[in-house]
């Protein structure tokens, strides 16, 4: 007999069995669907990259990474990241500072513009630069006359990468700066600090984790970008091939294991990014929890000053 008392006892024993929660069957069903999806579409392909990379053994793996062309691709990728990440850090800090601290005409337009690279297909982004700087483009003639090469050369790759990775730092910093507010900076001003001192001693330390997070995401994308770079690079082996382009080329040449060997480097980079990102998030959450915990009791509630009657 399922008496009401018994039902209540069961509810008490099983805390998840509340009226606001789904039944355990639904819960486990949803969890297993999500898990299976992640397994098939994310984890398996990732493992496959490493499996394929080592298909012909360690030796072949190392050899395919040590070819001059592979080396050139790795060096170019690092160079592009080393230029575009600092550029976007400077831009991102400036833009987020402007957006968080000031009110001006066209502020929402600027925010929308920062998001543009997210909404434009990378191939279209690459084509934009070809139209601008290519031989038939707007500046093509002038560039050719001055013997400057942008498209099918390193400057074009850098430009395309900067465009694609434009939003990462700014997007991370805007909410952090808005949350910090302007009062700490105003306090620094009243204490005599100039704009630069305020930025260096007060603003930057309070957004450093957000900034680092943005830099990590920006770096990962700068190294992994394919579409836009593919359009502007010209695929000159050993000269304008970045790692993703090199992977594609090797794969098209039916050199699967070599392609996967280079790809495994990119995958490792992605994993490293994820680990760093999780570490930062964990640290931020800890800092936040620490900041929100109740303050320790006021050990000296009364300031140690001569107590004086202040009746009026």
């Amino acid at each position, binding site marked *: 007999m399922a008496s009401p008392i018994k039902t209540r006892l069961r509810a008490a024993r099983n805390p998840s069995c509340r009226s606001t929660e789904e039944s355990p069957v639904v819960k486990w069903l949803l969890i297993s669907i999500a898990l299976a999806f992640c397994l098939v579409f994310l984890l398996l392909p990732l493992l496959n990259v490493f499996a394929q990379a080592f298909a012909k053994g360690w030796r072949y793996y190392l050899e395919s990474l040590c070819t001059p062309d592979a080396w050139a691709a790795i060096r170019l990728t690092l160079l592009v990241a080393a230029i575009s990440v600092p550029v976007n850090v400077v831009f991102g800090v400036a833009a987020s500072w402007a957006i968080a601290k000031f009110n001006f005409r066209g502020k929402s337009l600027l925010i929308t513009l920062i998001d543009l690279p997210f909404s434009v297909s990378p191939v279209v982004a690459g084509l934009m630069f070809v139209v601008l700087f290519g031989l038939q483009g707007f500046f093509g003639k002038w560039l050719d006359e001055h013997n400057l090469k942008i498209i099918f050369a390193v400057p074009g790759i850098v430009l395309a990468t900067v465009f694609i990775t434009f939003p990462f730092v700014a997007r991370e910093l805007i909410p952090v700066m808005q949350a910090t507010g302007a009062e700490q900076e*105003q*306090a620094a001003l009243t204490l005599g600090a100039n704009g630069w001192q305020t930025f260096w001693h007060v603003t930057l330390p309070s957004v450093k984790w957000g900034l680092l997070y943005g830099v990590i995401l920006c770096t990962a994308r700068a190294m992994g970008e394919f579409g836009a770079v593919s359009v502007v690079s010209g695929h000159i082996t050993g000269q304008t091939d970045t790692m993703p382009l090199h992977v594609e080329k090797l794969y098209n040449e039916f050199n699967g294991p070599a392609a996967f060997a280079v790809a495994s480097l990119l995958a490792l980079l992605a994993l490293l990014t994820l680990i760093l990102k999780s570490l930062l998030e964990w640290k931020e959450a800890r800092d936040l929890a620490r*900041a929100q915990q109740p303050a320790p009791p006021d050990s000296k509630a009364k300031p140690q000053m001569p107590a004086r009657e202040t009746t009026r």
Partner: protein
Amino acid sequence: MSIELKNVTKAFGPVPAVNQVTFSVKEGELMALLGPSGGGKTTVLRMIAGLEMPTAGDIFIRGRRVNELPVQERNIGFVFQSYALFKNMTVAKNIAFGLKIKKWKRPDILSRVEELLKLFGLEGLEKRYPHQLSGGQRQRVAIARALAPKPSVLLLDEPFGAVDAKIRQELREWLVTLHHDLNVTTIFVTHDQEEAMEVSNRIVIFSRGNLEQIGTPREVYEQPANEFVARFIGVMNILDTVVSGGVARIGEMQFPAHDQPEGCLLRIGFRPYALQISTDLALFPYRAILRHSFFLGIMLRLELELPSGLILRSRMTKEDYAQLGLEDGRAISFQIRNYRVLTRESAGLPTEKELSYQLPPTIGEHI
């Protein structure tokens, strides 16, 4: 004069937040800027600091016009309502910040920080971060940080707004003591009239951007310049009377008004303590029922209901209450010892005068 404002106006958009404000603060004074929220008092404080620029008018600090002087060069100490402590710095580094910026020598900085930690009862907390401090400690760090570079003026925005009632009382007393010891010119903003009365030497009262009155706590309480001040500082009974035959009347209450035109509306105000109450119904000219008594510690607040339905508020000590043998529902007689004629709120600064109380001639024989 330490600080002087002359016809200072600040407009955000078309509406002035501060309108033609003129006042001065003496060297070493402890001044309160008092008013309801949105009254413009914080804007005035921020303009003195240089965090806002006045739209018109001049600001002087120690005789020097500072309108164009950037905030860094005004030599002021500012304490924000939220304290705005540097979250990423320890207590000691927070206090030392202004000194480092001003390029003090390291030993001087150390000894100044030491001195302030001691003065503010913060010893032992120098290595803590702001999030590890209680509200009262945070406030003391904020004030110590503002005072460290020895500013000529200390400005505090709602200094007691963010702490609970008990600590607030301690902090008020502490601020008075601190001001007494350091003797630095201090201006603080508050919306709490009791706080302003208790702490400051003089009070500037604002309402909707206008300066309503400047005076000592006693002056603004006893001689309010207009109805706004009268209502804002303390409790006041306010009656709208009509003049007929040289007497302003409402219900059974009458006030002499010989020089007022017939039919004119006159607003009359008196403090709760101006009511004199007796259980002897023949002693005073007016009758009322004691409707409620509210116990407030050593004082009682009384609500009197007149036969016409008018409600008046009165105050009485516990002892007087017991001596008279009062209780709720008791019939009493009362008189009004002194009162004021108030202008209407919109009429600006005073044209009114205090009328000395005379009993209306018809019932004068009772006393």
